[in-house]
């Protein structure tokens, strides 16, 4: 059986299985088992993919399979992966795996919680494996909608408002996608939604000019494209731990992935022509997000705004429209996914002890919670781009790629983006300084339970991911590089 | 006799009649009167059918039959309507259309 189908089937079956059990113990055991299988399976996929590539299989996408679905509309259940998708699947598997452990102690409606969470993950997997625009879109929305319940029911703070805002804004984005996808479909007029087939079509530039912005903004909304990012701070701060992890870690990456694999891939000429508009927006969002982070006091807001900055960098890299920067953007997606998931996991764990997320009300956690604090520092260092951790690899690739443009506009944009690394350092160190260092804030802190085993599993898995990419990025970068060929080569102006 | 009245004048009459019905429907407050206004509109249509048959398609009877059906259905409609009016009257002791606004917005 095709491994990719299993990637959709296993989470679906896990969710289904959870429906039939009742105790919390059983629920989380099933969830953990299912997601562990998923993780192993993703590793196998990665191995097989690299194996195939090594044996000289240079097909654009591997492990393809096609099931006719709606023949009259040209909708097929086409699946297949390239290096980018494999990387994203790997990321998803790690994040959902750790997400399950991070929500080990969800007590309220745990069954529904895990089902929603896993349905969300199913949507994400489906999105990454499908090659058919319709199916992709289906999974995209499938991934978005459980967020409403997850935030609304299990969230905190102004959760209903946040959940509604998030859902509506993301759905607003997907509304644009509908128009864009249908526009592409009918402009190509070859009766298929298959991306690979569509990419071979030459779209008239007038049509591209209409549909490129729709697709790019549509995906950009979920990728926190300025100024459509405001769902993110509220949404993340209200969401329960695992949901923030999954959302910031994986779901936001759907945006970048979609921008690359749909908007830019299918409509290259318009991308060339219009990239400057979005470059301005993303350059703004990179620096703007970072600067706005400096003054936040809520840990989740800090992470949300820094995500705006980091995800801005993803789109920034993509919009540079060359292989190096795009490669960096994909790396940044993975890197940001891992580290932001780590952050949110840690924030959740700290919150469960301190019952506050306001950094000015905490301090000295390093003394009482050394394990979690060290993890936080590692996450922070990854976030500010320390070599040896994943953030560095990604950011540098983006910057080097961005610098390949030898004109003043791109230069200025690049320098604006690059300067975010200083601001990032400022806010990361500010948080680390206020939260972890300094004298222990309160006597009660000494009674905090130490990190529990499931918390360790969650954080350590993510840190391993960060380290692996940070220390040995070449295989990953090459894998992505090879897959970028068909996408970026089309961009070269004729 | 009939030929001396051109069709368009006849149509003007029926159209006027129709819109008088409309006007009545829009302005009369009594539900029964409103129903009568609808009958007026229907009769205008009936006349239309008959005149078209007579003037334009003398060999056909479709228009005539249509009129007959309309009359029959109007009767049925009126029966049901009046039954409901009675029911309403039992409930709110009024058949003024302006009182029929419990549900709005």
């Amino acid at each position, binding site marked *: 059986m095709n491994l990719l189908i299993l990637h959709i089937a296993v989470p679906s079956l896990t969710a289904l299985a959870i429906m039939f059990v009742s105790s919390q113990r059983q629920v989380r055991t099933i969830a953990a088992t299912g997601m562990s299988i998923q993780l192993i399976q993703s590793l196998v996929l990665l191995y097989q993919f690299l194996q195939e590539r090594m044996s000289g299989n240079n097909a654009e996408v591997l492990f393809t399979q096609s099931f006719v679905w709606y023949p009259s509309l040209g909708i097929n259940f086409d699946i297949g992966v390239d290096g980018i998708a494999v990387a994203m699947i790997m990321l998803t598997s790690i994040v959902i795996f750790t997400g399950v452990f991070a929500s080990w102690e969800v007590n309220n409606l745990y069954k529904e919680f895990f089902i929603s969470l896993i349905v969300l993950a199913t949507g994400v997997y489906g999105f990454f494996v499908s090659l058919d625009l319709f199916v992709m879109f289906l999974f995209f929305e499938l991934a978005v909608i459980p967020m409403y319940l997850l935030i609304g029911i299990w969230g905190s703070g102004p959760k209903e408002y946040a959940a509604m805002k998030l859902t509506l804004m993301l759905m607003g984005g997907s509304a644009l996608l509908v128009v864009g996808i249908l526009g592409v479909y009918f402009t190509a007029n070859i009766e298929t939604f298959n991306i690979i087939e569509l990419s071979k079509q030459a779209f008239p530039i007038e049509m591209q000019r209409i549909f490129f912005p729709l697709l790019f903004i549509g995906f950009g909304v979920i990728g926190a494209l300025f100024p459509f990012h*405001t769902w993110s701070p509220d949404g993340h701060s209200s969401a329960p731990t695992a949901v923030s992890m999954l959302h910031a870690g994986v779901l936001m990456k759907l945006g970048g992935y979609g921008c690359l694999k749909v908007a830019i891939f299918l409509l290259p000429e318009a991308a060339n022509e219009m990239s400057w508009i979005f470059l301005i927006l993303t350059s703004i969002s990179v620096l703007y997000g970072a600067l*706005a982070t400096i*003054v936040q006091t809520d840990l989740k807001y800090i992470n949300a705004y820094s995500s705006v900055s980091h995800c801005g960098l993803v789109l920034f890299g993509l919009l540079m429209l060359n292989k190096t920067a795009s*490669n960096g953007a994909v790396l940044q997606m993975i890197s940001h996914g891992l580290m932001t998931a780590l952050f949110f996991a840690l924030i959740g764990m700290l919150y469960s002890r301190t019952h506050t997320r306001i950094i000015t009300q905490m301090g000295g956690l390093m003394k009482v919670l050394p394990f979690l604090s060290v993890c936080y520092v590692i996450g922070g260092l990854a976030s500010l781009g320390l070599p040896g951790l994943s953030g560095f690899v990604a950011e540098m690739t983006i910057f080097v790629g961005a610098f390949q443009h030898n004109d003043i506009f791109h230069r200025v944009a690049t320098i604006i983006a690059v300067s975010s690394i200083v601001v990032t350092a400022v806010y990361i160190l*500010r948080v680390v300084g206020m939260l972890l260092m300094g004298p222990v804030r309160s006597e009660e802190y000494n009674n905090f339970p130490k990190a529990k085993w499931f918390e360790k599993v969650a954080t350590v898995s993510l840190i391993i991911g960060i380290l692996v990419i940070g220390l040995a990025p070449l295989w990953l970068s090459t894998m992505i590089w090879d897959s970028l060929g068909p996408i970026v080569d089309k961009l070269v102006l004729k | 006799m009939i030929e001396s009245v051109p069709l368009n004048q006849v149509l003007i009459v029926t159209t006027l009649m129709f819109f008088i019905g409309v006007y009545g429907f829009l302005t009369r407050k009594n539900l029964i009167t409103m129903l009568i206004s609808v009958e007026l509109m229907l009769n205008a249509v009936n006349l239309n059918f008959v005149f078209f048959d007579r003037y334009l398609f003398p060999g056909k009877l479709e228009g005539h039959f249509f009129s007959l059906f309309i009359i029959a259905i109007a009767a049925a409609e009126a029966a049901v309507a009046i039954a409901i009016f009675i029911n309403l009257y039992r409930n709110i002791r009024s058949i003024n259309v302006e009182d029929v606004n419990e549900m709005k917005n």
Partner: protein
Amino acid sequence: MGYQYTIWILILPIVAFVINGLGSGKLPGKISGWIATVAIGISAFLSYKTAFQFFGSGSHEKIIAVKTTWLRFNEGLQIDMGILLDPISIMMLVVITTVSLMVFVYSQGYMKGEKGYDRYFAFLSLFSFSMLGLVVATNLFQTYMFWELVGVSSYLLIGFYYDKPAAVAASKKAFIVTRFADLGFLIGILIISFYTGTFDFDILTRPEAMTLPVTATFLGLSTMTWALLLVFMGGAGKSAMFPLHIWLPDAMEGPTPVSALIHAATMVVAGVYLVARLFPTYSVLAPDALEVVAFIGAFTTLFAAVIACTQFDIKRILAFSTMSQIGYMMLALGVSGYGGEEGLGYTASLFHLFTHAFFKALLFLGAGSIIHAVHTNDIREMGGLRKYQPITHILFLIACLAIAGIPPFAGFFSKDEILAAAFATHPIYYIIGTLVAGLTAFYMFRLYFIVFWGKSTSYTHTPHESPVIMTLPMMILGIGSVVAGLIPFGSYISSDGVPLKGHIDWVVATISVVLALVGILIAFKFYKTESAKPEAISKSFGAFYRSALSKFYFDELYIAITKGVIFRFVSKPLAWFDRNVIDAFMNLIAAITNWVSSQIKEFQSGQLQKYAFIFISGVIIILLSFLYANQ
């Protein structure tokens, strides 16, 4: 015999880091200290072996001992991880491993019983690894990576006492300031790589590659000049050159051995090393940039020396002296030419780097020994320590003599070369340099006399000499401070790889030595015994003294810019803007929808006749629109 074994110089410290880091809190007793020390000890041994092998071979050609691709950006650009062996990198290897080893040993005594002992050695090992990686880097990007790692180790070590707010603030400041400088470095790298298509030092510094067809200019200077200036900005940040120096004095919040290793001997000279590494490029492609280097170096050396005369914190005085000495090195690089006699400055700079590492590390370790004994940093609370700490006293004196440039101590030789090089090219810099030589002698002996002579303070705990494990490394460094100057440095290290015959310029030497002696004499007069003269003199300087005491208000300036401008006038408004304009706009859309919704509710009036009216109006409007359209 190859050089593959040099990889172990790097691997051992990182292994020590991993073991100590993972085992943090679980390793028994002092084992972590020994693991780290043994690791760095073997590294040191291997470094010496490399040095003997390399210099013994007589060839000064660059050797790539190890090289592997780490990350590929595109067909041309890639980051390699590798080990580049050439005279300067081997010299640095020797310096770093030696000073590291001494500091590691010393720390076992100094840090005894401290909480976080294993964490300390983990971080130290990480630092050593990063620093070694930095110097052997084969390309700019590898340098940058280890550059960052060094910065982070420094951050971690300055903030070692993380429950002390001052330490936290200092570590943050150090990291952010250097990070800001690194921004320049990074952009510089990006520009260079764009125009040359490579990060490789091998290509970048090859003389035949130096006619790169870079014609682009920006604001009157060639792009390459800008790039190299930006690279220098990175170096200036790390080396605490004016105006990016503000982090270094604060960095003294870290444990003293850390200051000795990182903030005196090794990391802070990374900037010098970076410029030296790219020296051929600077020299040929961007002489203008070198002018800037020289100017900044000269200014800093004077600036820091003046401040050092006024400070009272023993470690801060040493910190400013470090800045001043690094300023010398920069100055020497800046005035140097490429090749032959003109390259004297280059040799002098690295020579000074080499000797400075010994005596400055010794000074810091001595300071640590003192602080260990008296539990204060303030020299006004010290005095008469020579009785209690005889060994420290002697060694400290040796170091002071060395830094003051008194023959035959190490500092004399290197400083003399610098001054000679400056004299040969830029007389004004020479004058500054000579002046600073006097100042240096003055403030070092001010320190020396106050601490070891001066009034005899009554201590709550009687100070006592440090244990052998601390004094032994100091002694070794002391020996280094005495003999390091005798090495014929020029025959090993020169700008173009051709041995440079070192000789002493007696005129220059005499003047500087005389000035130094004058400085010592004044210090002796003022501080040997307690006297009111210093106060009177400082009074006579008035505002100048006060501003020097306050380090010329640079901290305040930076605070004003960061807290005042960026925090208050950029970030806060931006955060507000995000919540109240952009987000509000999204909410406004929702609000408008709701408002419209409530405005139109009257259409659904419940009145049947109004419904019918709208019905018929609808019909008529549609009809009219067709009538209109058909006109």
